[in-house]
């Protein structure tokens, strides 16, 4: 009989690793120069970085104008070879954030932000106390309080027309309303699209397909230019309100399709198990199906939110001064003349957009991980 299996009698001692699997040299070889192709790519990438970083550093930091000791304001960045004009941002920061809102009333916006942050924090932080109270206050009471502070006209607050709202404030107002309204509306449309009742189903399909097939710019033009033509004489509604309604309906059509994707991924067994326990259809949806379906499509939902946030910049074409439009307007201010202040403004606006979107993205990844219970081992 021949031995076909080797049976170990004693434990093998731990051996040191073979040479050159640790240390910088080995790391470089494994990660950057493992094949001739990879080595070439590494060199190209290094050359690209070397090409792009120094000019970027010079523009943003070395040649940039950081302070204005002589009080030149608009003239401070007016010289050859100037880098980013940061004092422009500094000087016009209030305009970028609050738009044309009267300076002496800005405390109202700050108060509005403060209340908003205090109420929204418990909703975003898991395990925070007073969740239910905060949700109730945020979704039911806060909209009225915020509107009161914004528009004034009550409790002795000076009225401020919506035309004077602007800057980052307006961007946040539009996108927050858009997000809060389009989410439930999208869920309802998605459920309606799966309804067994033909009238509801056809309405939802028609709604979704109509709004999804129209560019947002068209929607905004229709809302601002064409809609008033259909209204009876003397009835006029606010441009901003019409734009917000347009954005909400537009985004809810997108949201509906994202949610529908999640609903379709739900196995039939979940409906059956819930039904077999005697749960009614609405309870099955609310307790079993939607929590799972929405969790599946968090990336899609946040994708839509991020798109919405950036799409708010389109309201500038109907004359609303959201963040990007205030930056553009400030850039063409004749009091400022320099080769770079306008560009610096756009960089600043771009950075703000990026910061908000990146925060949303990270938060969604955090939520995904927290809610991931399905196949956790």
């Amino acid at each position, binding site marked *: 009989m021949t031995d076909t299996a080797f049976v170990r009698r004693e434990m093998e001692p731990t051996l040191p690793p073979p040479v050159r699997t640790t240390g910088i040299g080995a790391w470089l070889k494994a990660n950057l120069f493992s094949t001739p192709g990879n080595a070439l790519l590494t060199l190209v990438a290094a050359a690209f970085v070397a090409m792009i970083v120094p000019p970027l550093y010079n523009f943003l930091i070395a040649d940039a104008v950081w302070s204005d000791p002589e009080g030149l304001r608009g003239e401070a960045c007016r010289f050859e070879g100037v880098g980013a004009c940061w004092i422009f941002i500094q000087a016009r920061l209030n305009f970028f954030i609050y738009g044309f809102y009267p300076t002496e009333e800005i405390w109202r916006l700050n108060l509005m932000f403060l209340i908003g942050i205090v109420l929204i924090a418990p909703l975003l932080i898991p395990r925070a106390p007073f969740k239910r109270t905060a949700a109730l206050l945020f979704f039911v009471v806060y909209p009225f309080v915020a509107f009161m502070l914004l528009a004034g006209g009550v409790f002795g607050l000076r009225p401020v027309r919506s035309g004077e709202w602007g800057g980052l404030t307006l961007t946040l107002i539009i996108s927050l309303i858009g997000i809060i309204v389009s989410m439930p509306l999208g869920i309802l449309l998605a459920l309606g699209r799966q309804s067994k009742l033909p009238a509801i189903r056809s309405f939802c399909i028609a709604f979704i397909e109509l709004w999804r097939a129209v560019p947002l710019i068209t929607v905004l033009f229709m809302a601002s230019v064409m809609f008033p033509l259909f209204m009876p004489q003397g009835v006029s509604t606010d441009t901003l309100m019409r734009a917000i309604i347009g954005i909400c309906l537009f985004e809810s059509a997108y949201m509906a399709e994202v949610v529908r994707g999640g609903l379709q991924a739900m*196995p039939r*067994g*979940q409906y*059956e*198990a*819930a*039904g*077999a*326990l*005697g*749960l*009614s*259809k609405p*309870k099955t949806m609310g*307790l*079993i199906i939607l*929590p*799972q379906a929405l*969790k599946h499509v968090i990336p899609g939902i946040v994708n839509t939110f991020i798109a919405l946030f950036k799409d708010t910049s389109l309201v500038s074409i109907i004359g609303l001064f959201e963040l990007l439009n205030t930056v553009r307007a400030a850039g063409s201010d004749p009091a400022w003349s320099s080769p770079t202040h306008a560009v610096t403004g756009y960089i600043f606006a771009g950075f703000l957009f990026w910061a908000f979107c990146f925060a949303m993205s990270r938060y969604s990844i955090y939520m995904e991980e927290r*809610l991931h*219970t*399905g*196949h*956790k*081992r």
Partner: protein
Amino acid sequence: MTETAPAMPERPIDRSHMTVSKTDVAIEVIDMHKWFGDFHVLRDINLKVMRGERIVIAGPSGSGKSTLIRCINRLEEHQQGHIVVNGTELTSDLKRIDEVRREVGMVFQHFNLFPHLTILQNLTLAPIWVRGIPKAKAEETAMMYLERVKIPEQASKYPGQLSGGQQQRVAIARSLCMNPKVMLFDEPTSALDPEMIKEVLDVMVSLAEEGMTMICVTHEMGFARQVANRVIFMDQGQIIEQNEPEPFFSNPQHERTKLFLSQILH
């Protein structure tokens, strides 16, 4: 299926208190037909289940066994005939369907636990939201049933962290938390590894010993022999034979039954 024999519980079953009511009807199916599109899946089904009775439905795959018990809690809709469960006839009236389902527990082949909820939440969801039982009371009941299926230590885990056999026992406990009058089992052990079949069958046997009215679709013939009052054999959407387990296995009447039994009992 050779592994069915060892999966059978060894201890003898005490049948003394497994009383079957003579007058109290739990489920009655009368002249029932069902079609899937053009396919006549259930043909002229007549079945009366008395309270306390334990019925095993056997038959080749595609014979309509699962469809039949799914009709009993209206997961499938029948097109002709009548189904009366606990005195309530199943019609398209949604309210009545929920009423019937509250009193009829169902265990599925693939468990169908709710993966986003912990085991304890799986068990308390329906008592809280359907019966309106206070949370603390529902959790107490749930823990009692988890003890019964011998996995109380898993209460705060998620279904994805449990083995198949444990998940199926949780699914049985979840149904029991609703305190059902009837339990339906749709091939409860078919998706399990052979090692785990016994732990689930043990729970089912103890349930039978307590006098639960049960209808089981299963291929576990050892289980059928041990606890069933009646075995029903289905083929091509019809009940073609029914008998007590002993004569059913030792002396099947119908040719198809003989063939089926010779295939699964070696």
